[in-house]
């Protein structure tokens, strides 16, 4: 139970994670990048709110939720486009992307309305 072994384990874990992730196809990695960007934007907004205060609250809420919303929708797109997912093998990626765009449209319409 030494520290060394757990450190080794952590290193091995990190290494295996990295190699497994490197094997994912390029389009999925792009989607993951987009998700990461959206979450990062949301975090920036939260930090800004912590500094400046939460008035007007509806703007803060709509900003954060729009970032979280597109992240979630991008994850859904990733699920549907992923070739390894057996459940979605008869769903064409174009249809998945069209659904993604439609849902984003509705989301941003609501955001625009709520932004104040």
């Amino acid at each position, binding site marked *: 139970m030494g520290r060394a072994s757990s450190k080794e384990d952590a290193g091995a*874990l990190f290494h295996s*994670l990295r190699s*497994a992730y490197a094997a994912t196809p390029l389009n999925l990695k792009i989607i993951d990048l987009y998700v990461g960007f959206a979450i990062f934007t949301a975090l920036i907004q939260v930090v800004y709110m912590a500094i400046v205060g939460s008035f007007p*609250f509806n703007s803060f809420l709509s900003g954060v939720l729009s970032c979280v*919303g597109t992240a979630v929708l991008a994850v859904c797109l990733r699920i549907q486009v992923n070739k390894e997912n057996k459940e979605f093998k008869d769903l064409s990626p174009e249809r998945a992307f069209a659904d993604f765009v439609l849902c984003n449209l509705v989301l941003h319409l609501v955001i625009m309305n709520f932004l104040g």
Partner: protein
Amino acid sequence: MAAPESSAAAVPTLYTNNALRNAFGGVLAFFILLLIGVMAFSIRLFSVIKYESVIHEFDPYFNYRVTQFLAKNGIYEFWNWFDDRTWYPLGRVIGGTVYPGLTLTAGTIWWLLNSLNIPLSVETVCVFTAPIFSAFASWATYLLTKEVKGTGAGLTAAALLAMVPSYISRSVAGSYDNEAVAIFALIFTFYLYIKTLNTGSLFYATLNSIAYFYMVCSWGGYTFIINLIPMHVLLCIVTGRFSSRLYIAYAPLVVLGTLLAALVPVVGFNAVMTSEHFASFLVFIILHVVAFVYYIKGILTPKMFKVAVTLVVSVGLAVCCAVIAVLVALVASSPTKGWSGRSLSLLDPTYASKYIPIIASVSEHQPPTWPSYFMDINVLAFLVPAGIIACFSPLSDASSFVVLYIATSVYFSGVMVRLMLVFAPAACITSGIALSQAFDVFTRSIKFQLPGIASKAEVDAAETSSSTAEAQNDVVKAEKSEETSKNRPSKKSKKKEKEEKPLTKAKAEKKRLLALPLDSSVISLLLLILLGALYVVHCVWAAAEAYSAPSIVLTSRSHDGLHVFDDFREAYAWLRHNTDVDDKVASWWDYGYQTTAMANRTVIVDNNTWNNTHIATVGTAMSSPEKAAWEIFHSLDVKYVLVVFGGLVGYPSDDINKFLWMVRIGGGVFPHIKEPDYLRDGQYRIDSQATPTMLNCLMYKLSYYRFVETDGKAFDRVRQTEIGKKYFKLTHFEEVFTTHHWMVRIYKLKPPKNRIRGKTKKSKSKTSTTSSRAKRSGTGKKNPWH
């Protein structure tokens, strides 16, 4: 459509036979649905036929008034409307405190019809909105149950919902209340959720969020949806049914749904700040954690995964505990733990009676009695357990949702009788499943027993093994039996949504062994049909007799015919025509909506009951002696006081029977009103045994003023006694109108005197050095008003 792919070389007639059968089934289902819609609409028309096309009860009058305003002034005025004719002198912000779904729906229908040159009045549209939407609700039930178990169960459930008395009671023609559209929105939202769960399509997830938005607009009961769906997601995760479809069904709904809920002004920021929504956020986080864990598990080897787990658990646990501690401290610091009063009274049924007498006093918020279950859902009461068992065989995501829905709605319906309405669709869905399965078993048993079919039976059984779609198509089963055994069952065709059954042959064998004897299945089938007939008879009776009363017009049959009591409208019409537009009318809060809508006068309190102190003020005034009551009403600029009295005709819901609530609510805010002062031996009495406080209070006086002139003995038909104080005069009020059957009595406040004869207010001393103006003769009262 239903082409069996593996037998492409099969006889061409096979394909057409299958397609023909499916087409026939589809057309039949369409016509059945149409008939169900017509039936749902027509069964709710009894009140229009027996009485007239009038808006019922109390709350619908407010909705009607709001819809009138919307129709006249347009939507921008509606959003910004500040109503100064209620809750005088506080007023009410209508745009921000009303659930706009119902009024916007009816307003849209009215506008659409009028732009098509069909000149229906706003009242007609309002009266008939509920039956139309109940037809939509039964179609939504068909869709929902079809996703769970198949078309046969769907049609049965739709037929059951069209007629279930519990739903009829809140959606007759004329009951223009939120539930009329909200139940449709509820079922439709659930249908879209299940559809998304079954198909994993983001398109349906978007539609689900929009349907949820419509539900939030319509009714405060939307919190049921936003707590039930997270509960179901949690259940799926815990029972190992996590899949990516679950993520697609839930995660967009939370984000989009919260945003859309925050858009509705009456919800606003409550969508993220009250405890009713926290469950959805918590499950959102849990879902993400679980999804991430599955993802990591998928890309790592098992050994590495174990390492990852130990690492995360050791580090993450400490962080998790800290976050949870902070959250719990935040929530626990608010006195109601962040829940609203109504929701808290659902979780703790004794909460309202201890702390909020107003919520406890509403008759719809009382727990239901056992007979009301049999009255409201009748036969379904014992079909529901059968349906729950049918949901377990086999258990899918959708059927686990149905089980959860019915379990929670049964609990809540036991707390508040108003929530029987939410229980009714669940009962219909499970009963539909049970009935359909039962029909399936019996008809299949009959078919197995019919001679000459037995050898082909296993093929048929394989084809119909887990689909109840053919339950309704007994006719076409005969055609099917002629098909050859080369017909590999079209497994894929009818089941998009359920788990595959690879062992249909083995199941067919099992089904043959389970076939019931012919005569018992025929008799059982007949008994089931009889059961359905009894249900229909009960529903029609309940709709016609029990739930069609508009409660603004009363009727009674006596030996000399039908008596109609139209006293309420008589009183409101008198107010409308004989008082000034700006006069204020005080009454108990029950009649506020009707007074503003029909009499068009400003009221002090109404059914919205948002301000407890204001209601307590009116309650105190009604419980005080005349002078004190006059003072209170005068300070509120009241000109007229309206009292409902049922003693002459035996109308039991009058103000004297509601008096205990006036005392309790008034006493809750003003401590000088003490309930024991009005009780004799723990009971409210108005006869000779009544306490002096009771006999002197305003409510007693206004109700029984000159009552002795009706029959000489002043016998109160509701309380079944003669009243205590029969002969008295009113000093500060004067009677201006009493309706034909003495049901509504209107009094006017006497204006204060110009000059005070007798002692002035300042000198309370009884010395004779006061001025010679003092007249102590005559009345002997030191009352400046006489």
